[in-house]
């Protein structure tokens, strides 16, 4: 058995490119022989995952971060056997994801993004009983396990109500309970806190930490940097289908500890100012985020030397209808590492 809980080598997934989508990663496939009976190849393919290597140790929480369309979900879908890789291999709990797909499924508990993975016309308890049967849990064991999870997820009072009457947070707890039913050694959690209110999200994060203490290996994808930073033992950053960095959160932050991040809050932001700021020597990345509906912008600048850059920054943003509201220099966060590596914010 592999020493790793999950091990992927050069995983590649290509999809036929849809007509008119103009995929920037689209690559033409080789021409087909005129009289060949071989499978018809699509004219262009879109490479969603492009040679991912992963080695996730048993018992660790591994965070997989990337902007939308980076290949996180495709990677997860290949590891949980919903998708077959175009090339490359992966093992989950020592089982090959293509040749031993059912053994992989028995080793995994998966929570896919979105809240519709359970039946809204069944009660919470009926959902868990149903999935317990699908995961081949003997009836006597299943009965006990369902009660245990209902208790643990704090839904005992409402376990016999239809899921359609639950809040988003409660549905997510049922989805997590479903993944835990067979007590699988490995959990794949795809955006487990997406769309949850802060209190429900905190409860899910606490639960993930508890599951790690119980010995589960967890592969977590998230849009929330703080969540990844707080929970993950190691983080892989994925962009355009490739893992571009892999380290502990601290290790990743050390990569840019020579840099400082200047955060500005201002009104009247326009692209001309961005061009001027980019021209300042030592400024490497600029990201902007509009705060709410108002004309208030948060601008982050990665600088090699903030002391040298600050006077020129102030000079460029003065006048022209722009007003500086606040400014400070901070240590780089994981999000800053992400921006440094990918050139874009996680939500781009």
């Amino acid at each position, binding site marked *: 058995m592999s020493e790793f809980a999950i091990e992927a080598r050069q995983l590649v997934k290509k*999809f*036929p490119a849809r007509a008119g989508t103009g995929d920037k990663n689209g690559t033409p496939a080789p021409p087909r022989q005129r009289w060949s009976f071989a499978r018809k190849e699509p004219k262009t393919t879109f490479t969603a995952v492009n040679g991912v290597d992963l080695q996730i*140790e*048993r*018992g*660790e929480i591994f965070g997989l971060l990337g902007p939308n369309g980076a290949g996180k979900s*495709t990677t997860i*879908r290949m590891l*949980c*056997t*919903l*998708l*077959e890789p175009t090339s490359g291999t992966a093992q989950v709990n020592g089982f090959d994801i293509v040749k031993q797909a*059912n*053994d992989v*499924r*028995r*080793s*995994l508990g*998966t929570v*896919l993004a*979105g809240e*519709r*993975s*359970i*039946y*809204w*016309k*069944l009660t919470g308890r*009926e959902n868990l*009983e*149903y*999935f317990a*049967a*699908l*995961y*081949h*849990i*003997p*009836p006597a*064991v*299943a009965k006990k*396990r369902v009660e245990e999870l209902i208790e643990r997820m704090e839904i005992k009072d409402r376990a016999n109500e*239809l899921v359609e009457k639950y809040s988003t947070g409660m549905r997510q707890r049922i*989805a997590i309970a*479903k993944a835990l*039913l*067979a*007590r*699988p*050694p490995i959990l794949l959690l795809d955006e487990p806190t997406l769309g949850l209110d802060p209190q429900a999200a905190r409860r899910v994060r606490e639960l993930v930490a508890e599951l790690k203490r*119980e*010995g*589960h*290996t967890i592969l977590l994808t998230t849009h929330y940097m703080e969540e990844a930073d707080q929970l993950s033992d190691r983080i892989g950053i994925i962009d355009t289908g490739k893992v571009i960095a892999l380290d502990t959160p601290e290790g990743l932050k050390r990569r840019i500890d020579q840099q400082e991040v200047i955060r500005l809050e201002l009104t009247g932001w326009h692209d001309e100012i961005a061009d001027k700021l980019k021209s300042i020597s030592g400024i490497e990345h600029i990201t902007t985020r509009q705060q709410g509906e108002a004309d208030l912008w948060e601008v982050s600048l990665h600088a090699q030397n903030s002391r040298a850059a600050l006077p020129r920054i102030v000079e460029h943003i003065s006048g022209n209808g722009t007003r500086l509201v606040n400014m400070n220099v901070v240590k780089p966060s994981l999000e800053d590492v992400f921006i440094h590596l990918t050139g874009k914010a996680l939500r781009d």
Partner: protein
Amino acid sequence: METSLAPRSLGRPGLGSDVRAFLAVVRREWTIFRRYPSWIIALFIWPLIFPMLYILTARALAGPDGSGLAIFMEMTGASDFIGYIVIGTTVWMWQNIVLWDIGFALRNEQMRGTLESNWLSPTWKFSYLLGPTGPQIVSMSMFIGITALEFGLMFGVRLNGSVWMILLMMLAAIPSIYGLGFAFASLIITVKEANAFVFLVRGLVMIFCGITFPISLLPGWMQSIAKWLPQTYLIHGMRAAAFSKAGIAELLPDLIPLLLFGAFWLVVGYSAFLWMERRARRTGAIGQY
């Protein structure tokens, strides 16, 4: 990392576990079916509406003295024109409902978002298609029973033949009717939208299988096509079983083709499912809306 802490899976694979999983799919489907109250309308109103169209048309065309009906009954050999029409339309409705219910079983799961979470389990995948068939056969039996009751009470339709022979014909038709549904279900997951195919198949059954007229009225080339449709034998056999004293021996010319078509469509349905499953893993079709 501490590997000694790693939890051990509670799942116990085996035939018994697969059977329990299949039964769980049946139970789930039945529970959800009961929670949509519209099934009451489907069960009590729909059996009347569709045949009524043809019954009233027949009465209108029969002339003021109803002489047309006597000619019709002489031509078909039926003792009751309403019963004759009801058997044809009921078979058509059975196939139609199976195409929508079983044909769209996986697609509905896909749109609900639950197909992937089912697919992630180690259960035999065909259970997800076979499971809904059980409740569908139960609800269809209720539908046919209510049809018989309603037309018996409201229109005085009486059977001269044997209920057991009618049931035997229906039993023999299950593999071909549901096998076609399985093939449809796999096709629909692949192409996402198959209303046109459903309309085509039910149109073929309506025209070629003689749901309201004897197929001897059709031109020769149409009769040749009718011989390749299992519903032709089902309708013919059910009418013989309902309105004559036909026994198994007399029904064999309809029973044997029905069973052969059944074997064919079950193989086609299962093969289509396996093809769809392999294709879905390659293309990600299970998760695509």
